[in-house]
């Protein structure tokens, strides 16, 4: 689709996700993540595809997505850098780190750099409080981070040294559901191929980080 719909591969994957749930609508948020993995944000075309897959209107997809901080209805940077300023991080100097981040990236909190590389966000507690100040880049954790650490992090991102750890924005998971896609399928699969169970496909299944 020309308007940023889901690729054929992702449409296939999306149908598998819908089949996991007793009600298709439950797949709405997982499919939004899938769409963001493809485009970095929720395009109009993707929302149309999702609406059709889960059985609601595109406006309902947008209306639901707009409730959630991680779902973006507008393009964001390739790297969304989120500095936590909640209590533990604040007590560890998070506002100083955030001010430094604004200077270093040349944007204000909430803005995206002109070249589209970085979006800077102020995050609520990221549950990394023992590593305060905690920073996430595309929801991958770094910490404790001070001003120097922040500069190194940005240098590493720009130089591509963190490509293995930080996928581009929107990619929530590099692991996909591969088995037991529905109770029915699981049963059929088991009965059809008990011998295949411990077979090769298991060994090559997407390990973390692969």
């Amino acid at each position, binding site marked *: 689709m020309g308007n940023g719909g889901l690729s054929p591969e992702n449409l296939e994957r999306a149908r598998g996700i819908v089949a996991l749930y007793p009600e298709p609508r439950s797949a709405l948020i997982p499919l939004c993540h899938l769409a963001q993995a493809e485009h970095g944000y929720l395009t109009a075309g993707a929302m149309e595809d999702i609406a059709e897959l889960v059985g609601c209107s595109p406006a309902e997809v947008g209306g639901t997505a707009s409730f959630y901080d991680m779902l973006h209805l507008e393009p964001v940077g390739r790297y969304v850098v989120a500095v936590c300023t909640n209590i533990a991080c604040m*007590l560890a100097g998070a506002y100083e780190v955030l001010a430094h981040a604004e200077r270093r990236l040349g944007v204000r909190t909430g803005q995206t750099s002109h070249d589209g590389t970085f979006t800077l966000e102020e995050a609520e507690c990221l549950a990394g409080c*023992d590593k305060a100040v905690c920073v996430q880049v595309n929801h991958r954790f770094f910490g404790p981070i001070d001003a120097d650490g922040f500069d190194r992090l940005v240098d590493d991102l720009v130089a591509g040294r963190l490509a293995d750890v930080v996928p581009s924005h929107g990619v929530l998971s590099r692991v996909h*559901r591969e088995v037991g896609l529905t109770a029915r399928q699981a049963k059929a699969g088991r009965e059809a191929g008990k011998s295949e169970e411990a077979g090769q496909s298991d060994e090559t299944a997407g390990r973390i980080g692969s």
Partner: protein
Amino acid sequence: MITEHPRIVTSRMGYDDSYTLERYLATGGYEGLRKALTMTPEQVHEEVNAASLLGRGGAGFAAGRKWSMKRADATTYLVVNGDESEPATFKDHLLIERDPHQIVEGTVIAAYAVGASAAFIFCRGEFALGYERLLQACNDAYRYGALGAGILGTDYSLDLVIHPGAGAYICGEETALLESLEGRRGFPRIKPPYFPAAIGLYGQPTIVNNVETMSNLPWIILNGGAEFASFGQGSSAGTRLFALSGHVERPGWYELEMSKTTFRDLIYDKSLGGGVRGARELKAFIPGGVSAPWFFPEHLDMGLDQDAVGKAGSMLGSGSVVVMDETACPVRVAWRITRFFARESCGQCTPCREGSGWVEKVLRRLEDGYGREEDLDLLLDTLDNIAPGLGWPPKQTTICVLGPSIPSSVVSGISRFRDEFLVHVKEGGCPMPPDEVRHG
């Protein structure tokens, strides 16, 4: 007192590959499930009753009792709450990233006991690595035979879905979580029904339990509920995973025996918190997540005990303890906590939606030096409209308890440090230095 006790939920944390199926199986993984499947569901439930396992998600409701509340005659779902977003709480994050199979095993045990036809683990969206590991654990558990049809060679079957959140604290509230799981905005549902055990996911009876609650189950089944209850004391049975942060030398997670270990042990013992940062004075600490009223040095010798902390006017809540030393500004801390609630209020209830924003603004102007003396009363009056009487536990005028959690920090701050609030007015701003950056 620091006691000898088994590591019930953190036994694998020393392994780099703790999250893999191989390590899990090599360290006794799925043996609890194997044993559970030789028992009847009622016997499994009975063990959990005998353990007096309290839910670890914040409200501290007995797990066994909750399971008894569901109707037996209808399709039942089990939903595991891994949305962990209460500020300063980071124990479920650890369990999800480092021992996902333990959660999966506990989930299957619980589903078996309550007769659930499907189970869901709701993983906070921001935990990208944790979500990947849960997905991998789910894939591997199916292949191993711990999920799917005919689990571990028995005729018990269960399907599990790992469901991602998308960034909204309110989705930790169990009815908002169910809305989110149904593909909608995370608006908490109107009560009654008070428990999803009556009407939950897709209108069916649903048991919602926390990730740490589930993680205790394999051990309880293997070792027996009575053995679990032999640790801790009274209703605070077993061990609990505490998350320590703020101005301490050694922030981190610590699994400790409940009740017998004290706040002083947790904060000061060399093997635990290691004392207040830079040997400074302790000013205050939060005993159970930012929704909890603050504690002060005179509370240090209290045990990590749900009832004791409750009687003293606060809560053990989510098991997260935040330490503030003498340099912490109570206005700034109360402001930041209120700001969190203002940002995360879902907006359905006027007292919560409007009140959180007003209180945040007044605290901000105090901190910035634009405050007035009357602002203290204004704050208390506004908060009284959210939780009338400002007592503990708070009265509720709203659909969920996010709203009534807003007064805790501000009332704690004003009651104890009124002078420091007033200094902000007199001196035209905050007398405290900026927060010191902790270097990594």
